[in-house]
């Protein structure tokens, strides 16, 4: 008799999802799916609203990375008010937004690595659930836990001073920003009493990379082989090929590093990217049009970014990038290398924050530019979890009439499904007993992508994950909930 395993809810991810694993009589995996079971619909209810409301309205679809949505929408609105496509803003306009964004990257990456991912690494994916959580990190590794909380707090404080609030601020407006950074605000971040300043954040970010590298030395086999499969990789890159999380051109490489999307203008993304709908998930499946849905799916996020870029434009992160590349090769298709890549980006974000804080442009008053009004605007940004697309069309009366959002997690939909499939086939298939640890292994694979399922479906509520076991007659045999 065949069975179906369901992991529901998936835990330590943002949002609500479930996994189903279909087994035959011999417990061999025949089919796996990662379903997203929540729905929100921001693309619909933004219709009719005045265009300048979008950056503030649409960010509400997420409480973890609202800044990314806020900025992607603001970038689209820059195009609409004729302020150019990312390079036309005044120096203070662009740099305040960058500072906000790097604060966001820093806090989100810290949150993910320390709070969500590290329990699996420190205690093992098959440790008891009551052990495998952030509370035990705090008990057993107090210094690390304190750092984790303060790193996240620092990122949030950067956001507060640029967006006006730690969550759901209003800083970016079409054509620029509504405030600059006062000297007082700058010094609070730059020269705050230890450990709360930009220099310490750089040191701690380096410490986090060292922590991972040490772990990697001891667990190389596990990290390198836990989940790996070839895929394309996509991200924005700066025009000169540098890592740039705020703005750039679209680049994609294949599993061997060959460029398959060659630094194109993202205003034309619809010429290169398509989305497929499948009946069993509220999350769409994007792919590169030229390769079709079967072969054109791609990964986004830290792993993809370090595969697409040529270098990192801050010295300490660049050094780490070189070391990472010397070990992982030209392109990494290994899921758990994502954690390493994420930490290198965390260091880069800390360096960028420090550089920006030292930039006197941030005290300028020339906050906004506008030019000839346009009817459509596309804004892309590298959110913590990967490339985020916002696309809006307005009518003659300044109302939004159309909106398309492709969220980072949506871009990673197929890769997460692949990860589930890979882990199920390699770790669960043929086993007579399916333990909770094995089911958590499936979640570890998903978790590496730091998915935000609420964002991806533009949804409401908390995100638990469920695993369901179904027999060959389609009857539910077992349900495991987290």
């Amino acid at each position, binding site marked *: 008799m065949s069975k179906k395993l369901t992991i529901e809810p998936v835990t330590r991810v943002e949002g609500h999802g479930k996994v189903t694993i279909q087994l035959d009589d011999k417990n061999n995996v025949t089919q796996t799916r990662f379903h997203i079971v929540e729905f929100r619909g921001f693309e619909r209810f933004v219709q*009719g*609203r*005045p265009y*300048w*409301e979008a*950056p*503030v*309205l649409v960010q*509400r679809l997420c409480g973890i990375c609202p800044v990314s949505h806020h900025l992607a929408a603001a970038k689209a609105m820059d195009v609409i*008010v004729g302020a150019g496509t990312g390079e036309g803003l005044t120096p203070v306009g662009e740099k305040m937004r960058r500072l906000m964004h790097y604060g966001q990257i820093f806090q989100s990456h810290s949150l993910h690595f320390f709070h969500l991912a590290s329990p699996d690494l420190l205690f093992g994916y098959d440790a008891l659930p009551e052990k495998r959580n952030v509370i035990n990190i705090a008990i057993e590794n107090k210094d690390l836990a304190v750092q984790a909380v303060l790193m996240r707090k620092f990122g949030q404080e950067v956001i507060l001073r640029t*967006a*006006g*609030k730690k969550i*759901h*601020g*209003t*800083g970016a*407006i*079409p054509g620029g920003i*509504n*405030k600059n950074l006062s000297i007082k605000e700058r010094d609070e971040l730059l020269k705050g009493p230890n450990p709360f300043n930009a220099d310490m954040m750089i040191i701690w970010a380096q410490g986090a990379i060292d922590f991972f590298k040490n772990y990697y030395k001891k667990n190389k086999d596990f990290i390198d082989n836990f989940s790996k499969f070839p895929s394309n990789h996509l991200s924005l890159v700066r025009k000169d090929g540098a890592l740039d999380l705020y703005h750039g051109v679209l680049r994609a490489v294949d599993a061997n590093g060959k460029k398959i999307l060659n630094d194109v203008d993202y205003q034309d993304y619809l010429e290169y990217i398509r989305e497929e709908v499948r009946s069993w998930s509220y999350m769409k499946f994007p792919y590169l049009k030229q390769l079709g849905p079967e072969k054109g799916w791609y990964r986004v996020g830290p792993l993809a970014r370090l595969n697409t870029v040529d270098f990192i434009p801050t010295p300490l992160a660049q050094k780490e990038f070189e070391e990472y590349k010397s070990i992982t090769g030209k392109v990494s298709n290994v899921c758990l290398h994502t954690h390493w890549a994420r930490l290198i980006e965390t260091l880069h974000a800390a360096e960028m924050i420090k550089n920006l804080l030292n930039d006197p442009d941030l005290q300028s008053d020339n906050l*906004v530019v506008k030019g000839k009004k346009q009817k459509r605007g596309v804004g892309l940004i590298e959110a913590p979890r990967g490339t985020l697309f916002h696309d809006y069309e307005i009518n003659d*009366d*300044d*109302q939004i009439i159309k909106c398309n959002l492709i969220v980072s997690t949506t871009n990673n939909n197929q890769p997460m499904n692949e990860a589930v499939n890979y882990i199920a086939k390699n770790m669960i298939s043929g086993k007579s007993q399916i333990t909770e640890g094995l089911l958590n292994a499936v979640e570890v694979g998903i978790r590496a992508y730091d998915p935000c399922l609420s964002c991806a479906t533009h949804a409401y509520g908390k995100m638990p994950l469920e695993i369901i076991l179904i027999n060959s007659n389609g009857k539910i045999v077992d349900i495991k909930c987290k």
Partner: protein
Amino acid sequence: MSTFVKFIIDGKICLSEEGKQLIEAAKENDIYIPTLCNYPGIPPKGSCRICTVLINNRPATACTTKVTENMDIKTSTPELEDFRKAVIELLFSEGNHFCPSCERSGNCELQALAYKYRIAVSRFPYFFPERTIESWHPKLIKDHNRCILCKRCIRGIKNNEGKTIFAYGRRGQYLEINIDPETSKNISDELAEQAMNICPVGAILVKEKGFITPIGKRKYDYNIIGSEIENQ
């Protein structure tokens, strides 16, 4: 010469000119009575009822009452406070007030009153009415979702010929205040700005100006509504 009268508000002996609007007379004596449809300088309407106080133990609206000698006024009995809360909650229930994405957030009198009275949720069911946005005007937007029908705009905003630029449209429960295409033609930027500012909520917006005031600099970010009067 004007005559001064003596009256009592919440036990405090007050002085003001005879015949003054009670709201103003209270203000002169550092006492805040909440208002919504009232606006200084334009004739009172008495439509929102939030300024209801007890005058010699009988309820009356402070915006439409003139102060007289020996009036005994109570502004905040538990019953009155609950009544005011209910009025605010009703307004939230009746319209579509999504503060998180409204550009008047932080500058909105309705929101500020809700904070003052610590309203987290309305006790009345939400209507979620289907309302439209009027955005054909080159300078203004009228968002009917947020309009509380206080009519401050109709009473306070006039064009060069002294004609109101807003007009009643539809009837009964569908009543709405529209921008008059004739009288609002060629209005100046200043008048458009005044129209936005006279509206207590975010129902009149000047186009393309949203969110230019950063959080922290908005009127009610750090100050409870009325505190500027009470703390004088």
